[in-house]
């Protein structure tokens, strides 16, 4: 489904702030893989997701989605294959537009935007039905501006928008990190539900090791721009947080000195 071949990315090349964010990284996701991604700050997790999404071009390497080479496609064209949810709940929705308008934008992802009506009446039932699953009462507020919603509500809505049109690949960039624990759990449960239901191939970054172990069928650990540990199936199910910390030290030769990770034990 996703093939990342030897990609590299360096930010601020030739300056004192030069940062080699991805170093010759390769990764293959099979159809239906739900991969959780962990790693310390600056490990290149978000950079990997942004590279796949096409936020900027990579310096070297090749990216294939569903067998199609997208390396040279701009971000907005790759969006046809991708569903994305960002860490910041403000980033995934248009605050000054209504809930239904946001959903209508998402329903047209990957299609050409014409002079036809932005929302058809027939779509509204579909939106209501989808919003009901969130049990946030949003189905009663179709025309409310998204800016009036809480962070958790916006993140749930973004997740819905990302999967309204079944994406070939779902990219989740720490999408629960900015939420309170209760809301985070709710959004995470919803994520698992939708991914299961639509059989989505998913790449999910998280700082929570427990979530990383519990969710998905495969786990990768990144360090300094590369994958240092890749585990799937039964072996992954048996993992503990201690195992992961140990693996990290073993593979990187450093102690896992990241406050957020340790707190997340």
């Amino acid at each position, binding site marked *: 489904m996703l093939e990342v071949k030897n990609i590299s990315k360096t930010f601020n090349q030739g300056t004192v702030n030069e940062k080699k964010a991805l170093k010759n990284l390769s990764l293959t996701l099979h159809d239906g893989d739900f991969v959780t991604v962990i790693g310390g700050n600056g490990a290149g997790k978000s950079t990997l997701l942004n590279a796949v999404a096409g936020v900027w071009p990579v310096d070297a390497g090749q990216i294939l989605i569903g067998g199609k080479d997208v390396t040279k496609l701009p971000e907005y064209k790759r969006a046809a294959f991708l569903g994305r949810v960002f860490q910041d709940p403000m*980033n995934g929705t248009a*605050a000054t537009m209504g809930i239904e308008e946001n959903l209508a934008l998402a329903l047209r992802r990957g299609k050409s935007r*014409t002079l*036809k009506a932005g929302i058809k009446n027939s779509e509204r039932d579909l939106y209501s039905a989808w919003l009901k699953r969130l049990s946030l009462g949003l189905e009663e507020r179709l025309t409310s501006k998204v800016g009036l919603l809480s962070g958790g509500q916006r993140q749930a809505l973004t997740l819905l928008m990302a999967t309204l049109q079944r994406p070939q690949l779902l990219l989740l960039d720490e999408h629960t990190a900015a939420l309170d624990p209760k809301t985070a759990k709710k959004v995470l449960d919803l994520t698992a539900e939708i991914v299961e239901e639509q059989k989505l191939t998913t790449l999910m970054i998280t700082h929570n090791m427990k979530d990383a172990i519990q969710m998905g069928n495969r786990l990768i650990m990144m360090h300094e721009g590369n994958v240092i540990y890749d585990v799937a199936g039964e072996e992954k199910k048996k993992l503990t947080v201690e195992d992961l910390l140990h693996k990290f030290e073993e593979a990187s030769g450093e102690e896992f000195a990241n406050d957020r990770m340790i707190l997340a034990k």
Partner: protein
Amino acid sequence: MMSLMNALPGAVAQGLIWGIMAIGVYLTFRILDIADLTVDGSLGTGGAVCIMLMLTGHSVWVSMAGAILAGMAAGFATGILHTFMGIPAILAGILTQLGLYSINLKIMGKANQAINVDKYDLLVSLRFIRNVAFHKNTIFVVAVMIVLVIAILYWFFGTELGCSLRATGCNDKMARAQGINTDFCRVLGLMVSNGLVALAGALLTQYQGFADINMGRGAIVIGLAAVIIGEAIFGRIFRNFGFRLLGVVFGSIIYYLVLQIVIWMGIDTDLLKLLSAVVVAIFLAIPTWKGRYFSTTGKKGVRCDVRG
């Protein structure tokens, strides 16, 4: 007092014409979230193209259509500078505006051109304010055009394309994630906006009976003043997009009425532009001041592009 009363209909007519321009400014400033300074040049371009086409024997409708197209070309230039060439929007607008100064001079051949209302069939004029048939009255004619413009824009911003323009201005990261070509949307928005500004320039030229190389100087400030006044007074009443545009037109009329009253009160007219600039500066500062000194929940959506 009589002289003020006599001047007011003219002020309303001017306010209406500038109202079309202010709608253009609203589209870039509020919907696309760009302060587009192209308008200082494209207003004059609209006037210049319109008057030269009329003087060379074209009908008023053809001339105004030509003006709109020229304005859209100016918007296109700014859009390309901003998107394809990556120049910040404000600077892109300034560059186009500066270039347009030469272009406007070349279009007119000299710094100003006059047109005689008796010899040419103008749509609007200073002379069509009083003692003309109702349907020829400039206030009526421009009001009808504004209703048409608002109706078309209302329809357009409800279409798929119009919605993607709004999404681009609101949150371009989200827009791209939903497959919207944000660069295309910005260029298109700038074209529509400057087309409207040029239309206002064409009407203004007919109204005053001449086009002048300096007619667009400070246009952005007048446009912003109209947008801000309209929002301040009608923002709470007018929620609907169409009515918001109407509020901007009212803002423009109020601006010209106040201007007329200030002139009547005997202010040194040399100071008018300074006065406009100060008033607009203060109104633009209000949201910041509110956020800083009276804020309880004044948090704005994050817009910066964070990598981490």
